[in-house]
C-alpha cells in the first residue's frame, strides 16, 4: 500500500514468548497429578487394570488426533492457501513433531490390548470355536471373529499400525525439514517451494485418509468385531479436523498475549478459523447423523445392536449430551459472527469442542465392553476416563510446547506474510 495508514511492521523477535515454558510446567504438573490418581484408581478398581487400558486407548486416540490431525491440516493449508494457513503453520508443525510420544503411547495399546488380548476380543478369543463352546462369546461374535480373521489378527494389527507410523513419520519429517529449507531460500524460489509442498501434500492428504481409515477400524471399531460402518474412518478424519482446529485457535489466542502473535494474529484470520470450526461442526454432525439415520432406517439385526448398545441402559443420556456438546452448543454459539472475533468467547467454544471430542470417544469406546454394554453404571474404573486421558493429553501438550519453542512462530518466506502486515481493509 502506498499509504502507510494502519500498516504494521514484522516484529523483530519471532520466537515463542517466554510464558510457553510456564505452560509446559503447568501441563507437566497436571500430567503427573492425574497420572498418579489414575494409577491409584487402577489399584482400587479391582478389574485387572481393564478400565485403565480402555482409558489409555481413549487418551491415546486424543493425542493421535491432535498430532496427525495437525499433519493433515498442515497439508490442507498448503493446498488451499490462505492467510489463516500461514499463521497456524508453525504451531501445526510443532504438533506434528510430537509423533515419537504418540508412538510411545501406542505401545501399551498394541502390547496389552492386542498381543495380550486385553482390549480386543478377536485377539483374546482367536480360538473362537473353543470360546464359543465355553460360552465366552456369542454366535455372532464367533462368526465375526472367524470371518474377519484375515484382517483382525495380531500380526496384521502390528504390521498395519507400525507401517502407518512409519509412513506418517516420513511425512512429518519431510514437512518439517522442507519448511526450514524454504525459509532459508527466499524470493526467486518461492514458486518452486510452493509447488513442492503442493505435490507433497496432495498425495499425502489422500494417503493419510486411507491410513487413518485403517487405524480407526483396527484401534476403535474392531473393539466390537460384529459391527462395521463404511463412514467410520471418515468420521474420525472429520473429528480430527474438529479437534485440531479448536486446539490451534486456543494456541494462537494464548500466544497472542505477546509478540509476535500480538501483531500477526489479526481479527480476520481469527474469524476465518472460527468459520472453519463452524463448517467442521456441521460436517461432523452430518456424518454422525447420516450414519445413524441409515442404520436406523435399515433396522437390520447386523447393524442396529451397535447403536442399541449405546442408547439403552441409560447410555441414551450420554448420547444426547454428546449431540448437545458436540453440535448444539458450538453450532449455536458459532452462528454469531461477532463471537468469532472475540478472543475470550471463541476460546470457551474451542474448550467445549475439545471436551466434546473426548466425550464422544468415551461413548464410542466404553459400550464395546460386556460390563458396560446397554448398562451405564458407576464403577471406580469409570473414573479412569476422567483422569488418564487428561494425564496423557497433558504430557502431549508439554511435549508440544517444547516443540513450539524450537522454531520462530511465523514462517517468513511466503507472499502472504506481507498481506498479514497490511491493514485489514486492504483486501476484499
Amino acid at each position, binding site marked *: *500500500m*502506498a*499509504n502507510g*495508514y*494502519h500498516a504494521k511492521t514484522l516484529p523483530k523477535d519471532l520466537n515463542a514468548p517466554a510464558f510457553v515454558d510456564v505452560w509446559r510446567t503447568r501441563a507437566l504438573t497436571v500430567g503427573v497429578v492425574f497420572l498418579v490418581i489414575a494409577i491409584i484408581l487402577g489399584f482400587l478398581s479391582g478389574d485387572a487394570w481393564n478400565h485403565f487400558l480402555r482409558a489409555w486407548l481413549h487418551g491415546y486416540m486424543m493425542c493421535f488426533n491432535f498430532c496427525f490431525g495437525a499433519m493433515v491440516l498442515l497439508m490442507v493449508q498448503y493446498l488451499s492457501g490462505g492467510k489463516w494457513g500461514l499463521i497456524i503453520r508453525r504451531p501445526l508443525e510443532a504438533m506434528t513433531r510430537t509423533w515419537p510420544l504418540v508412538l510411545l503411547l501406542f505401545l501399551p495399546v498394541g502390547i496389552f490390548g492386542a498381543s495380550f488380548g486385553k482390549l480386543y476380543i478377536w485377539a483374546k478369543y482367536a480360538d473362537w470355536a473353543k470360546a464359543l463352546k465355553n460360552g465366552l462369546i456369542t454366535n455372532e461374535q464367533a462368526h465375526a471373529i472367524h470371518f474377519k480373521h484375515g484382517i483382525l489378527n495380531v500380526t496384521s494389527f502390528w504390521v498395519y499400525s507400525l507401517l502407518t507410523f512409519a509412513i506418517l513419520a516420513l511425512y512429518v519429517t519431510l514437512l518439517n525439514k522442507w519448511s526450514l529449507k524454504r525459509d532459508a531460500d527466499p524470493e526467486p524460489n518461492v514458486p518452486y517451494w510452493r509447488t513442492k509442498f503442493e505435490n507433497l501434500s496432495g498425495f499425502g492428504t489422500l494417503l493419510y485418509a486411507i491410513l487413518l481409515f485403517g487405524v480407526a477400524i483396527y484401534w476403535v471399531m474392531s473393539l466390537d468385531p460384529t459391527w462395521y460402518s463404511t463412514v467410520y474412518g471418515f468420521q474420525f478424519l472429520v473429528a480430527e479436523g474438529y479437534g485440531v482446529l479448536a486446539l490451534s485457535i486456543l494456541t494462537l489466542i494464548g500466544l497472542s498475549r505477546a509478540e509476535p502473535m500480538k501483531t500477526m494474529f489479526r481479527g480476520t484470520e481469527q474469524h476465518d478459523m472460527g468459520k472453519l470450526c463452524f463448517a467442521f461442526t456441521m460436517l461432523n454432525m452430518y456424518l454422525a*447423523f447420516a450414519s*445413524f*439415520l441409515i442404520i*436406523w*432406517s435399515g*433396522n437390520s439385526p447386523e447393524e442396529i445392536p451397535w447403536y442399541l448398545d449405546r442408547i439403552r441402559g441409560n447410555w441414551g443420556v450420554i448420547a444426547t449430551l454428546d449431540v448437545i456438546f458436540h453440535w448444539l452448543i458450538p453450532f449455536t454459539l458459532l*452462528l*454469531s*459472527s*461477532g463471537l468469532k472475533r472475540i478472543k475470550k468467547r471463541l476460546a470457551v467454544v474451542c474448550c467445549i469442542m475439545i471436551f466434546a471430542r473426548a466425550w464422544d470417544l468415551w461413548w464410542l469406546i466404553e459400550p464395546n465392553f460386556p460390563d458396560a454394554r446397554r448398562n451405564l453404571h458407576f464403577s471406580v474404573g469409570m473414573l479412569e476416563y476422567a483422569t488418564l486421558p487428561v494425564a496423557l493429553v497433558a504430557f502431549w501438550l508439554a511435549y508440544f510446547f517444547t516443540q513450539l519453542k524450537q522454531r520462530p512462530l511465523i514462517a517468513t518466506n511466503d507472499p502472504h506474510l506481507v498481506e498479514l502486515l497490511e*491493514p*485489514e*481493509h*486492504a483486501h*476484499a
Partner: protein
Amino acid sequence: MPEREGTYGLLAEFDTPSQLVRAAENAYAAGYRRMDCYTPYPVEEAAEAIGFHKNEVSLVCLIGGMLGVTAMFSLETWISVWSYPLNIAGRPYFSWPAFVVPAYEWTILFAGLSAAFGMLALNGLPQVYHPLFNAPNFRNGATSDKFFLCVEANDPKFEPAETRSFLEGFAPVSVVEVEY
C-alpha cells in the same frame, strides 16, 4: 410528495481504501453522522468508521431458518401422526429421525432466501433513482476502482464551504457537489 431539490451532498473520491477509511474515521470524529461510503468491494473498516456496527441481516436469516425448521417439522409430524398415519416396518408414527433431513433442508432454504431478500430489503433495494449517479466520476469508478465518501447535506453539521475544505484536507482525487 414535493420534488426534492438542491444539494444531496459532497462526494469525495479516493484512490485507496486506506485513504477512505482515514477520511471516514476523521469525519465521524468531527461530528458528521449522515454520510456513507461507496466501495467496489466490501470494506468492513469503512463501515465501522462511519459508526455502522451491526446489521440485521443475520437476525432476519435466523428467523427465516427457525420458521423453516418449525414449518417442516410440524408438517411431517401432522402428516405422519394425524393426517395419514402409515405403519412403516412397525416404527412409531412419530419417527423423528426420519423428519430431520427435510426439516434441515427447509431450514437452509428459508434461511438462505431470507438472507438474500432480507439483505436487499434492508439495503433499500430495488431503488430506481439515487442522486449520486448524477456525478460522472461516481458512475465510472464506484464499481471498479474508486472509493467514495459522501457527506450528506441533511447532516446538521453540514456547511457547503466548510465541509468541502474539511474533505479536501484528506487529499482526495476530487470533491464534487451532488445535486438531487
